[in-house]
């Protein structure tokens, strides 16, 4: 049995660009914006970084192949640079590369960057791809909202929840995130909305309306990690360390096998169970004080509360309506606005979540700071579709 990652790696510094429709910048500029904040926070010089990882989800619309654009944008001193890609979970994958490099002893200080430049496509939503490969020859002609919308139909049928009741609960999810995003100066969407607005918005993919869908944004986020010992040597006193870092990839069972009912995320259950074990968490509802989850769509967030064990199965609708995950609830979710309002530059999102958790743990989150700074925070980063995906769960906490 592996000893796990718990407390072997500390976050030395983090940075995050402003998310949104960044007509002013391409991917290189966004990476620089996140990097300059991170390196200032870390208090080191660029020459002290031993290795770097770059997470990008859709390279054709962003920066092209390889990690060379990272090295060029940051003018890194010819250190090893690696590009990773795991759909929308690419950010956490990049973070995992840097954390493992430090934990292995191969690097003293490593950098993780996630970036996506989506707003050069000319239209809303995620870019459409050329469709030649075999999976596309059978896959339904679909979009991300449509793929995730299906969860709602299966969830309603399984738990006997009326479509309109579920619609109201997912509206609450989005209203909450808009309220949180309004307090976040780096967020893409900063206007509060009402439940009525959410419920009555134009339909995107039944039952998901416009406000059930996250922002499609440009942005970058960056983390610099090291060992707790080196962090202290560099003068850091309050240390945020990695408690768990787990990834679970679908193997085709949900899509092709039998048994999955379409109402939940199998990989989230697997990854979170492993993460709790790695972090030594036995009762997540008591021990996790804050979450940033992959709310690409409101229904994803609602169901994820159950898959993470923070709600009983079939009860998330009630917990959501009771305000359990609101900013002033018992376990706030998306206190920064989440993918919904902070925005979702694919490759950056996983690191952006950790960035928010890091700020909240250190009490540095400004107007949106949780009054009692949390002790342990979880981020959940999901790439792909409900029936075929990769889920990354990262838990960070005070050392």
């Amino acid at each position, binding site marked *: 049995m592996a000893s796990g990652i718990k407390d072997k790696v500390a976050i030395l510094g983090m940075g995050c660009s402003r998310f949104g429709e960044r007509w002013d910048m391409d991917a290189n500029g966004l990476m620089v914006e996140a990097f300059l904040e991170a390196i200032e926070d870390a208090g080191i010089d660029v020459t002290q970084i031993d290795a770097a990882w770059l997470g990008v989800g859709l390279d054709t619309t962003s920066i092209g192949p390889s990690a060379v654009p990272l090295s060029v944008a940051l003018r890194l001193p010819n250190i090893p640079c690696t590009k990773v890609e795991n759909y929308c979970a690419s950010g956490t994958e990049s973070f995992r590369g840097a954390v493992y490099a430090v934990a292995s002893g191969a690097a003293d200080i490593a950098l993780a960057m996630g970036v996506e430049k989506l707003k050069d496509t000319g239209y809303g939503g995620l870019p*459409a791809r*050329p469709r030649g490969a075999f999976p596309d020859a059978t896959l339904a002609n679909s979009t991300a909202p449509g793929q995730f919308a299906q969860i709602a139909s299966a969830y309603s049928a399984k738990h006997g929840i009326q479509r309109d009741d579920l619609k109201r609960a997912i509206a609450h999810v989005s209203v909450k995130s808009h309220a949180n995003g309004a307090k976040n100066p780096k967020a893409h969407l900063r206007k509060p909305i009402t439940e009525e607005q959410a419920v009555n918005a134009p339909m995107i993919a039944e039952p998901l309306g416009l406000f059930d869908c996250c922002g499609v944004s440009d942005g970058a986020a960056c983390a610099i990690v090291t060992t707790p010992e080196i962090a202290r040597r560099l003068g850091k006193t309050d240390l945020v360390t990695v408690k768990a870092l787990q990834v679970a990839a679908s193997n085709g069972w949900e899509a092709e*096998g039998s048994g999955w009912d379409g109402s939940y995320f199998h990989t989230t259950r697997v990854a979170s169970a492993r993460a709790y074990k790695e972090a030594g968490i036995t009762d997540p509802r008591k021990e996790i004080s804050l979450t940033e989850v992959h709310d690409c769509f409101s229904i994803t967030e609602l169901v994820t509360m159950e898959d993470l064990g923070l709600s009983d199965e079939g009860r998330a609708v009630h917990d959501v309506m009771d305000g359990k995950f609101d900013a002033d609830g018992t376990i706030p979710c998306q206190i920064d606005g989440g993918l919904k309002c902070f925005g979702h530059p694919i490759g950056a999102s996983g690191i952006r979540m950790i960035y928010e958790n890091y700020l909240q743990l250190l009490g540095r989150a400004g107007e949106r700071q949780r009054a009692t700074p949390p002790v342990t925070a979880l981020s959940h980063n999901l790439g792909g579709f409900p029936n075929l995906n990769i889920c990354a769960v990262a838990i960070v906490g005070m050392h």
Partner: protein
Amino acid sequence: MTSIIAFGAYVPRRRLQREAAVSALSWFNAGLGAHGRGERAIAGWDEDAITMAVEAARDCVAEDARQTVRKLILASTSLPYADRQNAGIVKEALNMPDAVGALDVTGSQRAGTSGLIAALESTGGGGAVLCVASERRRAKVASEAELVYGDGAAAVLVGPGPGLADLIGHHSHTVDFADHFRATERPFDYEWEGRWVRDEGYAKIVPAAIGAALEKFGVGADAIDRFVMPAPIRGIDKSVAKAAGIKAEAVQDNLQDRLGTAGCAQPLILLAHALEKAAPGELVLVAAFGQGCDVLLFRVTDTIGTRPTNMGVAGWLDRRKAEDNYVRHLHLAGALTLDGGMRAEADQRTPPSMLYRHRRSLLALVGGRCTKTGTIQFPPSEISVAQNERAIGTQEEYPLAERRARIASFTADSLVYTPDPPGCYGLIEFEGGGRMTVDFTDVDAETLEVGQPMRMMFRIKRNDVDRGFKHYFWKAVPDYRAEA
């Protein structure tokens, strides 16, 4: 004795209300009002002569019986490919063995009957021959043809008897009577004056051919119980019957008010429709006009009442949805280009090498069954998808196309580009195992529900207009035979 062993048909679900077209166009051509009665069948954007042929063939021949078919003949004047055997695509979709002959027949409105005659003449030496006629003709906007034409297909399986109807004989006249023509690479027919077509064409060519045929068969015209002839000109079937000495009551419903004229498929559709109602001993005469005339005569046998139930022409005609949005019809028929936005620009190229490699999965919807665990999956894979038993190299072919399924999850997607939004799709589970997330078609988004029974249909999945390539796959439709 050569006989019809089985027959089937297909009619697309949407029916253009002719009145909707006439009211949109009468300012431009007041004469169209004469064609404003009833409705015509219109294929979906994802249907063509190939997909409709597949459905008619499925309606005609059960999965098991397809293994014994020796030859497949596809007749149409609206085949998607000038050079890529269209019948070969139908063969793959029907999951027929490679050891089968295939032939495309085209070039005239007689292609359906000429194909059927070729099939009947090919039955020597045993084995069955399947003839499918299918048509989706384009018509100029505001032309009479736009209102008169219909889309549909029929399939007839023939072989050495006994069968449902025995062939008494066939006879053909060939005359270059260019009542209309469509030049190669021209999309539309060019039609000469209808009065000339009626008086010099139908009225003279068809009765002469029928007379010669009946003399050859030694059958009197008054003995004909059912007379089948397409009637794109109103009443032409009745006047031809009269000229040929056939009883007025023998003239069968030409379906002009419900389906329209489905080109060279129409004689076979009408034959199938007549046989659905026929009694043992009846004589059924088929006449098809088109640069000459084909005549076929069948005697219905005692087994007609014992044939397996299928949808048939009557069943498909009852499965209908009225289309009174003329603009939508124009768009789905390819006559009007609506701005699909940039999402519609995505490259739709299908690599033929990939398609060939996966043709069993893509065209015949063959999945895999693990012989060790019994797990059924789509597509097949070297390592079984079964969670707890990763058996290697144990897959056997498991056809899914004829399996019924139920919806496990679904959506109606207004964001995705499809010519006919919203794009409906979802996860379906097949009875007996296997699942896939698949496009739905012929659905009304507001009626979808978890647990809804579905069936599979062969359709166009994407249209690579830049290269003229159609990528076919299977889609789920609401179960149209819930009782079966």
